[in-house]
Structures are given as structure tokens and as C-alpha cells.
């Protein structure tokens, strides 16, 4: 007791003195704190961070992402790891709270010194962590679809961009059901950007936009919107409603007497999980555009589905596009890191170097369940084939159309005035470069 009191006094005296003589500490920078040590060491595990929500409202999709990442890591490790070193995930729980995302990112980078972060499902959480990722010149693998209009040196995305997502869906629907369409989305950035892209495809296909409505995030009251749709009488509905609202939307669609065969919903989000959550009868007949469906018929996908569902991570009983995109990100990382080690040696590996050496990385048919994809060497998004599936009575999807070849990602496709995303930053039409634009 006495000892501790004495040490306490000593500490406070020391502290008071130091507080006066502290200005030297003002100049310490982050680089000095950790710049010298190398990110990976020969023979030691390669640490990567898995930043997903395991609790809270976002846990529904993100828990699956964590599980499929662990599955992919096990698979990579069983096959000998990366350059002979095993991959070790550092799993944290972002608790569906954007403050926690930000805090955990700092912890993963500064404390755990992971070499890359895999994480986020919503754009809002990505935006919350990007300032930190960029300030530390770190690397984020963002494994899902998003709106684009972002150009940084620190992200690699394995999901479809808004310019890829609905490119085939809109012409297909116009051709099958008619020209008149009604847009419904959740009220936030991604649906609005997706709809801007969809409008371009719609115009090309000769379609006509009857109305555009946005629902508050998490809202479950679709009565007013459905009334407006009933009055507008479109041939089909294009939906970017997400999460629990999406399920309410499909249920109320049927309950309000809308018929799926005369006015189906073409969605960018309603996949296997959502269908199961709403009950198959409410999902059947509607359309989804995604690069991956569980029902894809190819040997790699059969192996992936079977292997995953049988593994200890497969308790949820399904695979879906978001999981597959996450799975791919693990392999994109593996190949990128291998390229980096080949080019600069183990000592030269930094998160930024991995990103730079991931340009053009390909995941071949033999590994990628959705088929060959590759990373764009300028904007570091993914070349992929969007596919259109129709939900069947048993909740599975039937592929009705697949793109003939991979579609190029372009985060600024509808904003040519702003610039073009290149490997070194956003290049404005006047030739001026800006390193990071978020």
C-alpha cells in the first residue's frame, strides 16, 4: 500500500515536471513511431485485419463475410500460405457502430500492425475509416458493391461498381417486360448513384422513367410508395432498397396485390439471404443482378459451395454474392502480395506496395466461383461479369442472362467532368492530378 502511494507521488511529480518540459513531444510524428519496422517478417504469420460487425444490425451480412474470410484463409494456409508464410486473421467486432469502425481501424493498423484490412459492408462505414486508412497509407479491401465516385490509393474493391451493376439488367427488363419503369431506393448515397447509372442504361434501351422514390433507411412502411407505383402503372420496378426495408418492400408488394409476373422487381440487392428472410413465396419471380449466384453451374463454384457449407464456417447454410466477393478479395490479396514479394522482397512489403503490385491481378476460373475476374490497373476496382438471376419458388436463383465478357469498372463513368481515376490519383479533364478524392 505504502509502496504504491510512494510510486504514485513519484509519478505525479515526474508528470508535472514533464508536462512543463514536454514540447519536444509535439514534433513526434506517426512515422517515427512505427515506420522503421517491416510489415511482414520471413517465417512469421502475415497478419490481416477482418473489420466486420459481428453484433448489431449490420451483423446479418457482415458476420457471413467474416466466416467466409476465415474459410478462404484456411484454404490458402492449407495450400502452403503466401510465399510459405501462413496468414493470420485479426478478427475484431465493429458492433455496427461507425465510431467503432473508425476506432478499430486505428487499432488494427497502429496496434496490431496488420498488413491489410478486409472490411465494411456499407459505404458509410467505409467513409468512416478511409481518412485513417489514407493517413496511414494503408490498404483496405472493400469486398462488396458500391457507388464509385471515389479515387484513393488505398482501396481495392472486389464488388461491382454502379456502372457495372445494372448495365445488363435494365435493357434485359425493358426487353422482357416493357419500357416503363419505376425506381425505388433506400434514401442514401448508393441507391441514388445506382439510379443515375440506371437512367443512362434506361435511356439507351429506350425506356421511360415514371417515377423515383426514396424510403428512409430502416423504414418498413411502403404503403405510400406502392400507391404511387399503382397509379404510375410501370412494367417493372427497379429497386435499390436495402436491408430490412427490402424485405418489408417485397412482402408488402405481394400483400398489396401486385403481381410478380406483370410487374416484377429488378433489384441490385435481393439475394439468397434476403429471399430466405422474407419467405420464398415473396421473393419468387423477382430479378437480381449480381456477379455471383449460389446456383452458378461451374466446377469451381460447386467446390466452393460444397466446401464452405461443409466447413465449420458454413452454419448459415448458404452462399451469396457478398460472400463470394469477400472470398475473392482474399485471393486478390494473395496474388498481390506474391507479386510484391517477387518485386521488392519481403522487407520491402508495405500495404501501399501491395496495392501498387495488385494492378491487373487475375483470379482465374479455377479459383473464382463467379469465373475469371481481374483488378483494373488504374482504379483498382474489378472487371467482372454481372449476371441476372430470377428467384425460383424454392428460393434459389435461375441464371437467365450472363454478360458475354467482363465489364470495365469506372468509378467516374457518369462524371467525366470531374475526371478519371488513375493509379496515381484522380486526373481532372484539365490534366490536374489529385491524389485522393473521397
Amino acid at each position, binding site marked *: 500500500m505504502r509502496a504504491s502511494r510512494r510510486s504514485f507521488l513519484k509519478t505525479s511529480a515526474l508528470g508535472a515536471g514533464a508536462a512543463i518540459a514536454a514540447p519536444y513531444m509535439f514534433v513526434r510524428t506517426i512515422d517515427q513511431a512505427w515506420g522503421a519496422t517491416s510489415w511482414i517478417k520471413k517465417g512469421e504469420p502475415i497478419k490481416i485485419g477482418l473489420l466486420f460487425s459481428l*453484433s448489431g444490425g449490420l451483423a446479418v451480412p457482415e458476420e457471413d463475410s467474416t466466416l467466409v474470410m476465415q474459410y478462404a484463409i484456411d484454404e490458402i494456409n492449407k495450400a502452403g500460405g503466401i510465399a510459405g508464410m501462413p496468414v493470420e486473421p485479426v478478427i475484431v467486432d465493429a458492433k455496427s457502430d461507425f465510431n467503432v469502425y473508425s476506432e478499430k481501424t486505428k487499432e488494427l493498423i497502429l496496434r496490431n500492425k496488420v498488413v491489410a484490412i478486409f472490411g465494411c459492408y456499407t459505404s458509410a462505414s467505409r467513409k468512416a475509416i478511409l481518412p485513417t486508412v489514407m493517413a496511414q497509407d494503408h490498404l483496405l479491401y472493400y469486398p462488396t458493391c458500391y457507388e464509385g465516385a471515389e479515387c484513393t490509393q488505398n482501396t481495392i474493391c472486389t464488388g461491382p461498381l454502379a456502372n457495372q451493376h445494372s448495365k445488363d439488367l435494365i435493357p434485359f427488363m425493358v426487353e422482357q417486360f416493357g419500357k416503363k419503369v419505376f425506381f425505388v431506393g433506400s434514401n442514401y448515397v448508393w441507391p441514388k448513384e445506382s439510379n443515375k447509372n440506371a437512367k443512362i442504361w434506361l435511356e439507351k434501351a429506350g425506356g421511360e422513367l415514371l417515377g423515383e422514390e426514396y424510403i428512409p433507411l430502416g*423504414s418498413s412502411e411502403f*404503403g*405510400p410508395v406502392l*400507391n404511387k407505383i399503382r397509379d404510375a402503372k410501370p412494367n417493372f420496378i427497379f429497386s435499390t432498397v436495402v436491408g430490412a426495408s427490402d424485405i418489408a418492400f417485397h412482402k408488402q408488394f405481394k*400483400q398489396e396485390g401486385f403481381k410478380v409476373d406483370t410487374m416484377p422487381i429488378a433489384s441490385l440487392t435481393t439475394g439468397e439471404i434476403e429471399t430466405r*428472410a422474407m419467405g420464398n413465396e415473396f421473393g419468387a419471380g423477382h430479378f437480381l443482378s449480381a456477379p455471383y449466384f449460389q446456383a452458378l453451374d461451374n466446377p469451381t463454384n460447386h467446390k466452393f459451395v460444397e466446401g464452405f457449407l461443409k466447413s465449420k464456417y458454413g452454419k448459415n447454410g448458404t452462399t451469396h454474392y457478398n460472400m463470394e466477393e469477400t472470398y475473392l478479395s482474399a485471393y486478390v490479396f494473395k496474388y498481390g502480395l506474391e507479386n510484391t514479394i517477387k518485386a521488392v522482397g519481403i522487407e520491402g512489403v508495405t500495404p501501399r506496395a501491395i496495392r501498387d503490385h495488385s494492378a491487373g491481378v487475375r483470379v482465374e476460373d479455377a479459383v473464382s466461383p463467379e469465373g475469371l475476374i481481374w483488378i483494373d490497373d488504374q482504379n483498382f476496382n474489378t472487371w467482372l461479369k454481372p449476371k441476372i438471376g430470377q428467384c425460383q419458388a424454392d428460393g434459389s436463383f435461375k441464371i437467365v442472362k450472363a454478360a458475354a465478357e467482363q465489364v470495365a469498372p469506372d468509378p467516374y463513368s457518369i462524371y467525366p467532368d470531374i475526371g478519371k481515376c488513375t493509379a496515381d490519383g484522380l486526373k481532372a479533364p484539365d490534366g490536374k492530378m489529385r491524389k485522393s478524392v473521397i
Partner: protein
Amino acid sequence: MAAGSFFGSFDPSAFINALILGISIASIWLIAALGLTIIYGTAGVINMAHGEFIMLGAYSSYMLQNYFGLPFLLCVPAAFVIVAAVGLVLERGLIRYLYKRPLDTLLATFGVSLVLMQGVRLIFGSDPKYLAVPSIFTSNFQLGFVNISAFRVIVLAITIAAVVALWALFYRTRFGVQVRAVMQDKEMAASFGINSDRVYMLTFALGAGLAGLAGSLFGVLNIVLPTMGMGYVVQAFLVVVVGGGTLIGSVVAGGATGELQSIFAYFTNDTFARFVLYVLIVVFLRVRPQGLFAPSATRR
């Protein structure tokens, strides 16, 4: 969005549909708020766990339907009973110690809501569930240009039935007399031999049960999730506060807010409709802080 654009598109039949939909939205607001009205009106308890009672109602129906194969129509009263029992336990174990500290009941029940939400998540997992209903409920009626879904009619009917039953309970039974006596003056009621402790206990259970009933209906309208209650609780509170904590007040307030929401959403969009509604409520309470129909009893 200019004013002209939505008045330009004014269409009487669509507007009438919006008014009819407003009744349905109102019934949803009201049934979500009924339990809260009773609990607040009688005991002055601000029950922040009300949303989680709704969620429990949905999960009880889900459980009964999936594990015991109970038909949906039986799940609704069963959810009432189960959640009422939960409410009873909560009242005996916690709330009854806090009646003298209304702000603290608010906080304690918030703690309860965290526990219930996470408890349900641990038991059922965080993936969404759904309630299956007979296919007759998933259709709609069409009378001329008027459209309304069968299930919305069911919700409306159950809401009306619940309001009538509550009215009868409060104004036509001995228990109702006791409740109203306790509401007006607890000490005076006690001196006439009314066991106010018992009255509080039963009304709390009744209020919780009504939330469970609402939950089993909401599970059909949208989705069963551990977090589903959070969306209803602020809304339910507003109905109670605007109504002044009485049954008739809640009916009128629920009706007005539902109609207003539907009309605003018809003219503008859903998000803006919500914003306008919240602001209107604040302005209304500035003018009439005691709500529409305040009980004549002492101020709490």
C-alpha cells in the same frame, strides 16, 4: 421538388387512396402505441423497452409457428399471453421499485431493452426470420379505384377490437373503475381499499401483452429481427405524448399522425414526410404541452 410539381399531379382517386392508406398507417401507429398508453397513463412509467416487447411478440409468434406448428391466427393471442407474462415478471422484479422515480423507470427500462434485444439475438441469432400467414392474407381488395391489402384490413380490425375491448375494460368493469381511481389519485383510491400495487401490476402486464400482440402483426408486415422494435418506439411515444396519455387521446393522435404521414408522403416523399411530422409534433406540444386529452388528475 417545386410545389407546382406535386399539386400539378393531383389526382382525386389517388388522394382518396392515400387517405385510406392513412387509416391503415394510423392503425399501425395506434396498435404500436396502445400498450404504452396504458402503462404510461396508469402508472406514469416511461417504458423504453416497449419496442422490445413488440419484438418479443414477433419472436414468440415465430417460435410457436416454427417449433410447435401453431397456425398464425392462434399465434396472435398466444403472443399476447407470453409477452404479458414477461411484462408481469419485469414489473414484479424491477418496475415496482421505481414508481416514485419516473425518470429512472425510463432508464431502467432502457437497460431492459438492451438485455432483451441481446438475449433474443443470442437465442435466435441475428439473421432475420419471417412469419408465414395463410395466403388469403397476402392478397388485396379492390373496390372501384380503392385498393387495400387484406392484411392491412386485419390490422385495422384487430386495432379497433383492441381499442373497444380496452374501453369496455376501463369503463364497464370493476377493474376499470379501480384503474381509473388509481390514475386519478392513488392515495385516495388506496383509502377506499383499492390495491394499487395490484392495479399497476396488471396494467403493466396488459400493456406488455398489447405490445406483443402488435409485434405478431408487425412480423407479418415486415421482418422479424432483434432490432425491429427500435423503429416503433419513438413513434409510439409520440402518439402517447400527443394524445396526453389517455386512450381516446392516443386514438385521435394515432389517427392524425397516420393520416398526416400518408398525406405528406403523397405530396412529397417519405423522408420529408417524417421530418415535417416530427416538427409539427414539437410545435403542437409547444401550444398544448399537456397533449390532446390530458387526464384531469394531478400533474405528474
